[in-house]
């Protein structure tokens, strides 16, 4: 194979912030004082925080060094299944940084904030069109926040019918936060198993669906990277008993311009703008989790909502059945800008092409590696494919060992031990922004690791060997938590 991407380059040490600095330094220029000192109430006055005093160069070197210990999409391939770590266009950052957006106060009169309101209004329309749903709220600040909003909408819908249902069906192939989002709404989650093909069967749903069940939370495509083929039939079963169908649309990346969510029986759907619509993940947020609904659920969406009249935009609170507010203001507007910018850059054809290539890349990896690693569900996959460490067990090599070794080859490991339905799983999501050459290199690296597992398993047990730190003691970290210095 070609030389691996991982290097043994320069890794500089850097202490903790408060291990450097000297009292009296300041890394910031205080504005000129043009007013007198005012007396201060001594009972209320405090000492000020015990922060280290650092110069600007101290701070710059500190964070620059820290940054070099991180792997990001701009560093290399980040095939983290279920997380959609694709390339984030730089132009999006530029747009979000425009002074009119970045400097906008959220409580300005509507007449002074037409630009942001128009952007939100149009983004809602675009997301409606892409999903095939009727109305959208952009307010939830993350995917799980969107799940919660969706559950609140379902709760409010039943309430409007004079009902209080107590259960929600959650398949084992759904996202991890789904049951917790249901719990927050006071629902009890009822787990249901996927079938031998890795998808949900209508019979399994029919068995648990009753008049006390508020609905079902399906992740589609699911966390095995498979399309829930029976979704229409399942929706009929749930609807027949008065329930609603919630779709976790975090994996929308696979089906843009292809699946019409509005026509397959979905009532509520959340999107992860930061995944599908290319906002960088920032080391774990901020995200944005808009919720799209069918017409009959629109009255329950969070307020305020952006409305348009004669080309003028304003925020309206006039939705008496609304679930209320979920965010102090309107959600993560900065993330919305990036999604809007991305959609406009791609156009309808580009979005569909992105999904097609994401699926092509995943299926290509699946085909090329299926003899090397065990493939529990040998079916056409969507944007991610799931393997397990079944073949490597004999050599006492685990999924963890293999992915740690992958770091030495210059890659971020895929998602591991998820989904829970596959023992020792490795979930690979290459996304559409990786080229054939880069994917071939990645495949070769994984093949080389499978080979090492047989011939020299110690290499894997000791991996990674070229990072800032070696394997970390997570047990002690949890038993004797040290959470601040």
């Amino acid at each position: 194979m070609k030389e691996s991407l991982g290097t043994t380059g320069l890794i500089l040490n850097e202490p903790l912030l408060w291990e450097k600095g000297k009292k009296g330094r300041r890394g910031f220029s205080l504005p000129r004082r043009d007013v007198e000192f005012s007396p201060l109430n001594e009972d209320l006055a405090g000492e000020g925080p015990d922060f280290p005093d650092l110069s600007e160069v101290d701070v710059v070197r500190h964070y620059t060094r820290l940054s070099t210990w991180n792997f990001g999409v701009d560093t290399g391939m980040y095939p983290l299944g279920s997380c959609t770590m694709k390339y984030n266009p730089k132009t999006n950052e530029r747009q979000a940084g425009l002074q009119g957006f970045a400097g906008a106060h959220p409580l300005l009169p509507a007449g002074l904030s037409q630009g942001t309101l128009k952007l939100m209004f149009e983004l809602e329309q675009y997301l409606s069109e892409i999903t095939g749903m009727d109305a959208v709220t952009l307010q939830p600040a993350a995917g799980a926040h969107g799940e919660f909003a969706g559950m609140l909408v379902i709760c409010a819908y039943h309430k409007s019918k004079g009902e209080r249902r107590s259960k929600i069906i959650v398949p084992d192939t759904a996202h991890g936060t789904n049951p917790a989002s249901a719990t927050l709404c006071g629902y009890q989650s009822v787990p249901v198993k996927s079938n031998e093909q890795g998808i949900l069967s209508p019979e399994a749903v029919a068995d648990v669906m009753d008049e006390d069940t508020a609905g079902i939370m399906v992740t589609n495509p699911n966390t095995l990277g498979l399309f829930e083929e029976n979704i229409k039939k399942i929706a009929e079963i749930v609807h027949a008993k008065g329930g609603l169908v919630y779709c976790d649309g975090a994996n929308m990346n696979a089906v843009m311009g292809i699946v019409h969510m509005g026509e397959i029986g979905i009532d509520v759907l959340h999107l992860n703008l930061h995944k599908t619509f290319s906002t960088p993940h920032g080391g774990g947020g901020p995200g944005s989790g808009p919720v799209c609904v069918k017409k009959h659920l629109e009255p329950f969406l969070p307020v305020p909502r952006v409305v348009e009249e004669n080309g003028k935009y304003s925020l309206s609170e006039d939705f008496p059945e609304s679930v209320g507010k979920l965010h102090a203001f309107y959600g993560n507007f900065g993330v919305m800008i990036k999604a809007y910018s991305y959609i406009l850059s791609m156009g309808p054809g580009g979005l569909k092409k992105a999904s097609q290539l994401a699926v092509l890349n995943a299926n290509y990896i699946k085909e090329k590696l299926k003899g090397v690693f065990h493939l529990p569900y040998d079916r056409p996959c969507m944007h991610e494919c799931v393997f397990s460490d079944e073949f490597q067990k004999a050599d006492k090599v685990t999924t963890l060992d293999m992915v740690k070794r992958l770091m030495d080859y210059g890659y971020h490991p895929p998602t591991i031990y998820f989904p829970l339905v596959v023992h020792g799983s490795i979930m690979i999501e290459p996304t559409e922004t990786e080229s054939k050459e880069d994917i071939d290199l990645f495949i070769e690296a994984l093949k080389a690791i499978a080979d090492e597992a047989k011939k020299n398993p110690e290499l894997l047990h000791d991996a990674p060997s070229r990072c800032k730190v070696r394997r970390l003691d997570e047990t002690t970290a949890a038993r004797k938590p040290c959470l601040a210095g």
Partner: protein
Amino acid sequence: MRYLPHTSEDITSMLEEVGVDGLDGLFSTIPEDCRHRDDLNLPEPLTEWELNDRMGALSDSMAVSPEYKMFIGAGSYQHYIPASVSSLLGRSEFVTSYTPYQPEISQGTLQAIYEYQTLTTRLLGMEVANASIYDGASALAEALLMALRITKKRKVAISSLIHPLYRRVVQTYCEPSGYEIAELPYLDDGRTDLSKLAGMNDLGAVAVQSPNFFGCIENLKEISEMVHEKSALLVASFTEPLAYGLFKNPGSQGADIACGEGQSLGIPQSFGGPVLGMFASKMKYVRSMPGRLVGKTTDMDGKRGFVLTLSTREQHIRREKATSNICTNNSLCALAAAMYMASMGGTGMRELAMLNYDKSEYLKSELKKAGFKINFESPTFNEFVVEFPAGFKNTYERLLEKKIVAGLPLAPYYPELSSHYLLCVTETRTRQDIDALVREVKS
């Protein structure tokens, strides 16, 4: 499309490997009746230049500083952000990484969050802080749910001087579980009236904000004693953490949970988001805390390192039993705040807070001199309520035309304060701006 690297030859050869004819063939598992029949009805793709024009036009229609002189805070504050912070925050190793699930190649994010947690505990005077959540409002809602989990009670009392929009978020969060929320009125001096507490039983938590929505500093020490007497937890909320550069922090006054908005610490206002939900508590409650935590540990060679920890509290393990669904934080915003706090240092935070205080005191005294009423007399930090004469609405509109935003009208939030406005002055307003405002409101 410039973000998609595949050539038609690549596509053909990859399809061959997969064994399907054409890209459509990849979607064979999707039934026909689940598909879009037509192409998406969206605008045709824009070039980068066209996009710049379109976004530039939207952005230019906004009223923002420096052209507009803003005297409006109310949970979103204009502060200078050092160029070094914006530049460091833009480093793609921070921006384009994900949740640090693989600690060996995420030490940058992990150490930075650990430092953020530490700076947050020091700023708020608390023992433990999480890696942040969505915003000040959701932080308050999560704090109250946490207090109810700890105390196993079903009722909370909330000061009416907590940001009105935060209170509405709390209502949304509490509604489906049927938790009871009682509201505490306010006194003539601009602080929370706690007298109703005496008659309340079975309280899990009492929430107050300081500085409160009127900008007034609450006497947290006194409040915490009363709250603890009722065996409830004190949740101290805030929208302007810079105040703790000058005033006593919530932890030193007995708060059990301190939570609020950290936007002031180097984060752009961005029309209200993304911002930073700061969240901290006493150590004994850490296992009930929502959100992500980073802990210090060592690697196989004994070298210092950092990992995500205590995740068994969360949805990863016992997903049906999880009580919080917080899965992401606002990591990049937390990083910005850490960089900002590091740039300020203890000395800088104090000086900056003092400057904010003095500038708003200057406006307050100039308005008083001009004959306007400041009814709430408690000490304030960088914002305060002023009563303007009836008919001030016209003056307010006229000032908007002169590109001065003379505060936030309180009528929509407190109907009894129909001619009152909440005014805010930070270090970004000059004496000249302030004098111009006073001159204009007088005329």
